[in-house]
């Protein structure tokens, strides 16, 4: 039986606004090098800080976490006494994270994910690091493992590139800049833009004037996301012991994930434009409510799936998605990127005569739209679904410029078959699958009988024939 108290930082969420309220005037005075002012501001917020500290101490003293008899119980509270019991048999994955800001206090975050659920998806506990590691070991015990995947050298660079998420990093960077600007009262975004303008001027030596600033911004966020990804994938390794997959890594924020293999609901190979260039694809796993998008489990080289099958033989010999391009509706795949391309081509033609300054920018956008058309053609030729005798469903679908090859291992999902009257007449439909991790996948223009068969076999229930929309 393991017992522990939650770390006092677990309760920081309750008092963070009060702490920020007290800390902001102090920081502002410190930034102005006004130490007496900072001291006065600290004294003014002393009562609030003391109250917060007292509340934290009381909550910490009353908190209890215990693991016994297959039940993890978490208790605590001040006026409202709250005791939660979680069945360890329904835990699909555990994540132990030690971020930079918790490490100096000897704390770590423990995330528990479940096999399914809409209201209870995951729980987060901040515990002393030793206790968090002890609970992780007790929840999903692991013996000595040999790393089946540990990228090094150029492989490491490829893995970091494939794990980089430019959109998410840009969003977080902009949010952080906005938040810092609000707190310290200085426009951090304007300062960064000033630096980017200098980089833009440098790039203007090689690029057309309209493109240089855009290229500088894209390059800046790409490098930022690559650095973040490099730090996340530091000493990354993935291995398996019995029915438990484990992956570890990270420099500033050490992360260890343990996943119960029988609880894996889906495995996705993501073919992004960068993956096409590198001829390598990252593999993402879903296990119940656990569906990380920040870090893949491993990276597979095109045509070489040995590492993957060595680690996860459950994924071997997947069914090949059936695809009948002749029965598909090309318009469904091509109308959006096609119409955008035509519009941009027309704008480019006009801009070359009237506004030559923006022509290079329109040219780049047109190239992106044409890449979308190419991906639409690929989707027309490859998108499909199939199921094997073991009940595993393979889905191939495309979103924007990325193709996803997904193997669905669970039957705990919602399958919708949707056909408009003209599509029903042509004998095709869309198949929408919603997994326990709340991811919705859409496969377009499937033959209607195939979709109905998949819906019937893929779920425990049956289908209602001859209806336009079927929820199974």
């Amino acid at each position: 039986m393991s017992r522990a108290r939650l770390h006092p930082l677990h309760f920081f969420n309750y008092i963070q606004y009060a702490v920020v309220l007290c800390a902001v005037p102090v920081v502002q005075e410190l930034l102005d090098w006004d130490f007496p002012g900072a001291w006065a501001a600290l004294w003014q917020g002393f009562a609030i800080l003391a109250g917060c500290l007292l509340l934290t101490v009381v909550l910490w003293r009353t908190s209890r976490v215990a693991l016994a008899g297959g039940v993890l119980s978490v208790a605590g509270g001040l006026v409202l006494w709250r005791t939660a019991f979680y069945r360890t048999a329904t835990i699909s994955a555990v994540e132990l994270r030690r971020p930079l800001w918790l490490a100096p206090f000897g704390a770590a975050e423990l995330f528990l994910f479940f096999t399914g659920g809409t209201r209870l998806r995951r729980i987060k506990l901040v515990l002393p690091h030793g206790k968090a590691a002890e609970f992780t070991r007790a929840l999903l015990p692991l013996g000595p493992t040999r790393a089946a995947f540990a990228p090094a050298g150029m492989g490491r660079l490829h893995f970091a590139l494939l794990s980089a998420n430019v959109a998410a990093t840009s969003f977080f960077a902009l949010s952080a800049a906005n938040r810092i600007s609000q707190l310290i009262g200085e426009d951090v975004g304007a300062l960064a833009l000033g630096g980017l303008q200098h980089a833009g001027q440098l790039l203007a030596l090689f690029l057309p004037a309209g493109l240089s600033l855009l290229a500088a911004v894209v390059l800046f966020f790409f490098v930022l996301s690559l650095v973040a990804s490099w730090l996340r994938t530091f000493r990354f390794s993935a291995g398996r012991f019995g029915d438990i997959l484990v992956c570890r890594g990270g420099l500033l924020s050490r992360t260890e994930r343990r996943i119960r293999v029988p609880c894996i609901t889906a495995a996705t190979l993501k073919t992004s434009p960068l993956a096409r260039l590198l001829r390598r694809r990252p593999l993402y796993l879903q296990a119940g409510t656990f569906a990380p998008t920040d870090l893949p489990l491993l990276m597979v080289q095109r045509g070489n799936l040995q590492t993957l099958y060595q680690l996860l033989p459950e994924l071997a010999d997947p069914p090949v998605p059936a695809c009948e391009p002749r029965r598909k509706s090309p318009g469904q795949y091509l109308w959006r990127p096609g119409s955008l391309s035509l519009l941009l081509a027309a704008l480019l033609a006009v801009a070359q005569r009237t506004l030559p300054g923006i022509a290079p920018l329109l040219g780049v956008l047109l190239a992106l739209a044409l890449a979308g058309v190419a991906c639409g053609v690929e989707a027309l030729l490859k998108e499909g679904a199939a199921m094997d005798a073991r009940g595993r469903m393979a889905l191939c679908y495309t979103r924007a410029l990325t193709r996803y090859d997904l193997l669905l291992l669970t039957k705990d999902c919602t399958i919708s078959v949707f056909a408009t009257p003209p599509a029903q007449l042509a004998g095709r439909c869309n198949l929408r699958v919603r997994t326990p991790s709340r991811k919705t996948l859409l496969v377009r223009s499937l033959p209607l009988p195939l979709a109905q068969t998949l819906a019937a076999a893929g779920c425990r229930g049956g289908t209602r024939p001859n209806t336009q929309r079927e929820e199974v």
Partner: protein
Amino acid sequence: MTYTVSLRGALLPALWLAGCSAAAGFVVWLLWSPGPALAVTLAGLLLLVPLPFLRRRRFAATVADGALCVTSGYFLQVTHTLPVAGVTGVLRLVTPLGRLLNATTLVVFSTGGALTLVGLTRADAVALRKALAGGEPSP
């Protein structure tokens, strides 16, 4: 085994609803005038407070054949069935008022959703929690 809501257990949500009615009346008083505020409070008290006592008459939670079956509702009777194997967690909430009335709120989380049971006695809540989640007593 069947679990029911005691009279004091029904008093707990009734008092919550009475508090909500009073709060609604207070808001109307602040925004408008005392007359409508009194009307809103009285209407709330008359319409809402009896509901938990009516609901209690038809409430029954049973754990049998590997499923939790909860029947509730007076005017509109609803039966929820959750397979015990799908239960991921159970949350027990005890408020100071609940401690006085020996009433507990239990939230049962399952892979399909969650079910809230208000007004069970503490002993019934512990027994139901053990039947659903198993394991040792609370820490």
